């Protein structure tokens, strides 16, 4: 940490106009009056744009990963005629500064006739369909998505599973609720855009996880060519999924720049980011689990209900398909059926958030504990009993996922040791005798990473120019994952140069190859794999060029730390700068089949799914007087294959665990029954601080994958599996009080109610 990062807000174009949005103060209603004349007349205001000016510019609006034909909510830049959630942009001021722009907002007269909103409230929820009205009247339904999809010929049930549920010795049925909590990147959203009509060129600097997606979305929106758009990013202060796709406000900024033929800048503030940045989680999952007498799972039936808000991204915002694929996790679960429904509501739309599908693990891992305890089996033993062991690989799960190199049993055993699972029960009993409530929780999962479609073909291209130093360009979009470090490490190793001599360029559509950015935990496996193969290609090229100079056979040469040597004759050495000079200027001596220059690229084809695995364990203490929780110990064991950089791996896990601690105990975005948000600043939306986070202990099991380099996904897992580990630990601590604990967040008030027997 040096404090020298440069973020989108640090980019200063002297000619930019600063944006502030007028946002809807009500969740649902008709706009009966919108008068922007006084705002337009304010000194320093260039223009005030409303739907009438901006919306007609829209040509098309979709995200690359979902494609042009997938359903989308009825998107619009600015609200026209009606408003559909508190925070929806209605008008856009362009002024000489953000200060002036906000002054102008106060001069806009807005009159909205309120209508009852469709709100899925926190505990009395999902009364969505048909009852109060439609979020999007155009659609005629509040259902955004359904799996299985009735019109796609998918089986609508599993008779064999119903049989099992009807006849198994034990059947358990539980519904879990996960509240609304958010990405909250350290840097909020932000974008600068300038349209130059004379060159026909749109220049964009954005806080994004993928510059190519910004370019593509902009081109689609305005009906211009992708080649007319140059999008890039500076350092990006976290995204966690929120910056994977262009938001409505981002689209408004490029549209305004296009229409006004000027430079426009929008730097989101924290208040906006909380209210309008894209929301997450907010879902229920019902699980029915059948086991035999010994506690072997015979079947699982799952039903998932998601609240996707009004305008989710990408597509209709449902994560049910991935949840369905990943739910079996590290277990052999026998018969299986998954259904889900996603519903619109008059709230901020759902966006991707680190492990967007993670409800499958949150629900399953809680269910594992509940079932184990009801069967009188220790939760660790119950997991071992049902877990897929290495001797069964390759293993095809009940959802059709094929595991080849996962090691769930090894990581579970390792984490049990790291947390001292065996010793804990004595510790717990001693604490209870002192009136202290301690609990332990475990959770395990398989982290799936998508390699299908556009997510599965990523490129790294390498160039050694005249001075012999290496430029690696990738389609990744590091926003805090240290990709600059890890890709450089892989290139240095596979090419045979010093790490210091490799510089990574990414998130710039003019300088980096087409790619889908950083997201979905793919970067190490996909870009790392491509980097490795590109490095090997370039190494062969370097050796061929050097072979000409040294009049040797390339087979007899080796490249290490940027110097080519003849094997067995270390005195004969050719530094990279000389090889490069020869490649670009000394090519007269080249044989006809040797192309001048030192460049190589590789575009990798990833497997449809890549998998890693981990197990987490937490020990917590609940204060019986206040219901407050302290996490006393936390341990993680994971297998992400070969680790490019253990510090980066552990950093990824730590960040995810902190988000789990936040989600379970502190963070909760609350709407009241009128759809009015109540937690709009960090005074009320509570993030965990350093004081709330324990030291995390890490264990690593290293089982290389079959992809180049042997790397596996690791970016999202910490946030996926920490919530159930923590909830299980609290449930264990409160077992004397018969706590069921199936709804988050676990606030002090909720826990004190349980301790005092006041549960609703």
């Amino acid at each position, binding site marked *: 940490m040096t404090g020298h990062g440069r973020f989108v807000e640090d980019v200063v174009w002297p000619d930019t106009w600063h944006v502030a949005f007028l946002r809807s103060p009500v969740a649902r209603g008709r706009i009966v009056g919108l008068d922007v004349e006084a705002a337009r007349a304010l000194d320093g205001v260039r223009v005030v744009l409303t739907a009438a000016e901006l919306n007609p510019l829209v040509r098309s609006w979709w995200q690359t990963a979902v494609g042009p034909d997938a359903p989308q909510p009825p998107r619009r830049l600015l609200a026209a005629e009606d408003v559909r959630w508190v925070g929806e942009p209605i008008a856009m001021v362009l002024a000489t*500064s953000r200060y002036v722009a906000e002054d102008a907002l106060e001069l806009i007269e807005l009159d909205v006739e309120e209508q009852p909103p469709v709100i899925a409230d926190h505990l009395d929820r999902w009364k969505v369909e048909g009852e109060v009205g439609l979020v999007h009247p155009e659609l005629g339904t509040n259902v955004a998505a359904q799996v299985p999809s009735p019109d796609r010929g998918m089986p609508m049930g599993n008779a064999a599973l119903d049989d099992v549920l009807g006849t198994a010795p034990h059947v358990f049925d539980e519904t879990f609720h996960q509240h609304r909590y958010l990405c909250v990147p350290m840097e909020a959203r932000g974008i600068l855009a300038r349209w130059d009509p004379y060159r026909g060129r749109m220049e964009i600097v954005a806080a994004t996880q993928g510059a190519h997606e910004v370019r593509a979305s902009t081109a689609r929106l305005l009906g211009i060519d992708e080649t007319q758009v140059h999008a890039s990013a500076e350092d990006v202060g976290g995204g966690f999924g929120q910056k994977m796709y262009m938001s409505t406000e981002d689209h408004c900024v490029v549209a305004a720049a296009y229409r006004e033929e000027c430079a426009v800048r929008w730097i989101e503030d924290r208040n906006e980011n909380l209210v309008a940045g894209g929301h997450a989680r907010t879902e229920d999952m019902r699980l029915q689990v059948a086991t035999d007498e010994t506690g072997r799972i015979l079947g699982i039936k799952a039903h998932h209900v998601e609240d996707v808000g009004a305008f989710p991204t990408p597509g209709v915002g449902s994560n049910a398909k991935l949840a369905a694929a990943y739910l079996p996790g590290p277990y052999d679960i026998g018969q299986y059926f998954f259904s889900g429904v996603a519903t619109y509501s008059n709230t901020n739309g759902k966006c991707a958030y680190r492990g967007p599908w993670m409800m499958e693990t949150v629900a399953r891992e809680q269910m594992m504990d509940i079932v184990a305890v009801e069967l009188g089996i220790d939760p660790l033993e119950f997991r071992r009993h049902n877990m897929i062991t290495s001797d069964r690989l390759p293993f095809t799960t009940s959802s059709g996922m094929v595991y080849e190199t996962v090691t769930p049993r090894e990581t579970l055993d390792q984490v049990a040791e790291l947390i001292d699972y065996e010793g804990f029960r004595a510790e717990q009993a001693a604490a209870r005798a002192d009136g202290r409530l301690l609990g332990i929780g475990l959770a395990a999962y398989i982290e799936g990473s998508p390699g299908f479609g556009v997510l599965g073909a990523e490129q790294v291209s390498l160039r050694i120019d005249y001075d012999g130093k290496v430029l690696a360009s990738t389609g990744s979009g590091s926003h805090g994952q240290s990709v600059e470090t890890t890709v450089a490490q892989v290139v240095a190793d596979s090419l045979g140069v010093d790490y210091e001599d490799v510089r990574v360029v990414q998130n710039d559509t003019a300088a980096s190859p087409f790619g889908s950015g950083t997201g979905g935990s793919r970067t190490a496996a996909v870009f790392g794999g491509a980097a490795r193969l590109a490095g090997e290609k370039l190494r062969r090229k370097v050796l061929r060029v050097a072979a000409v100079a040294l009049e040797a056979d390339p087979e007899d040469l080796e490249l290490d730390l940027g110097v080519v040597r003849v094997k067995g004759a270390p005195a004969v050495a050719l530094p990279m700068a000389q090889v490069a000079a020869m490649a670009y200027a000394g090519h007269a001596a080249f044989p006809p089949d040797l192309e001048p220059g030192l460049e190589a690229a590789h575009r990798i084809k990833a497997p449809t799914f890549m998998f890693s695995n981990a197990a987490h364990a937490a020990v917590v203490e609940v204060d019986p007087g206040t219901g407050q929780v302290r996490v006393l110990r936390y341990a993680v064991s994971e297998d992400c294959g070969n680790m490019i950089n253990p510090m980066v791996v552990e950093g990824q896990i730590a960040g995810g665990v902190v988000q789990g601690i936040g989600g379970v105990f502190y963070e909760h975005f609350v709407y009241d029954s009128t759809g009015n948000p109540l937690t709009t600043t960090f005074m*009320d939306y509570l993030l965990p601080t350093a004081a709330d986070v324990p030291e995390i202990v890490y264990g690593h099991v290293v089982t290389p994958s079959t992809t180049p380099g042997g790397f596996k996904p690791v970016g999202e897992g910490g946030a996926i599996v920490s919530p159930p580990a923590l909830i299980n630990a609290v449930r264990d601590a409160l077992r004397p009080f018969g706590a069921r604990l199936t709804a988050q967040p676990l606030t*002090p008030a909720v826990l004190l109610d349980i301790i005092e027997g006041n549960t609703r």
Partner: protein
Amino acid sequence: MKPAPFAYEAPTTVSEAVDCLASHGEEAKVLAGGQSLVPVLALRLARYEALVDLNRVGELDYVRREGSTMVIGAMTRQATIERDPTLRAAIPVLREATRLIGHPQIRNRGTLGGSVAHGDPAAEYPAVALATDATITVIGPAGPRIIEAADLYDGPMSTTLAEDEILTAVAFPVWCPGSGFAVREMARREGDFATVGVIAGVTLADDRISRAALALFGVGATPMRFRQLEGELLGADFLAVDPTDFGETLAQRLDPPNDVHASTAYRTRVAARLVAEALDAALDTARQETTS
């Protein structure tokens, strides 16, 4: 989140500051550490034509003993109070409470005067002032006057200071030997404003309670004292006091707010516990003071 335009004045003496404030009438506001005022301005929850910045008024930054009180200038930073050795010996509760205010970064900027004048019902200093029977000195165009802590607050974040008055100092009485104080607070996270906070103070003379104070914060529109209940403690043998009972009794008189952080019921239950703990700890300290 950008404030509306305002004029900015930076006087260097108290009398200049009083003049500045008077010249802008009701439309001016004093700026101290800015830790509460600046967010309010940035969110446009309030707007003022002018800010009168006290940060250059050196004469408001001091800690000194005057007879049986410790007098602290309004612009004394919370961090200074936290570290001052004289204060620590004379009014230990002040340091204990200071450490519960926000984080070091906030205490480096935040001031005693700002905190007391702002009057957040969940803030520590107003409750310390109330519990110790402090007096507050303010000055306006008509000259200085003194306000008892008990008379300072008339609503949430609302004081009996006139708009043209500046808070200049708070005088905290040093309680006599044999006294003990304790602060207990429940906050969602370390450094947060209290969900429920309690300050208890007692003086023991021959093992009997001769002075008692209980101030709660975070449970009402202003910090609250419970004089009648305190009165019931007077004259009692400290061994005869049942803090748990006392906490339950006191909690029955509360009607705390309901918000996203905690319900009325939750605050009431936790208040009962914290009162008991604070009273118990204050009695303990007082007894150690008398025996040492």
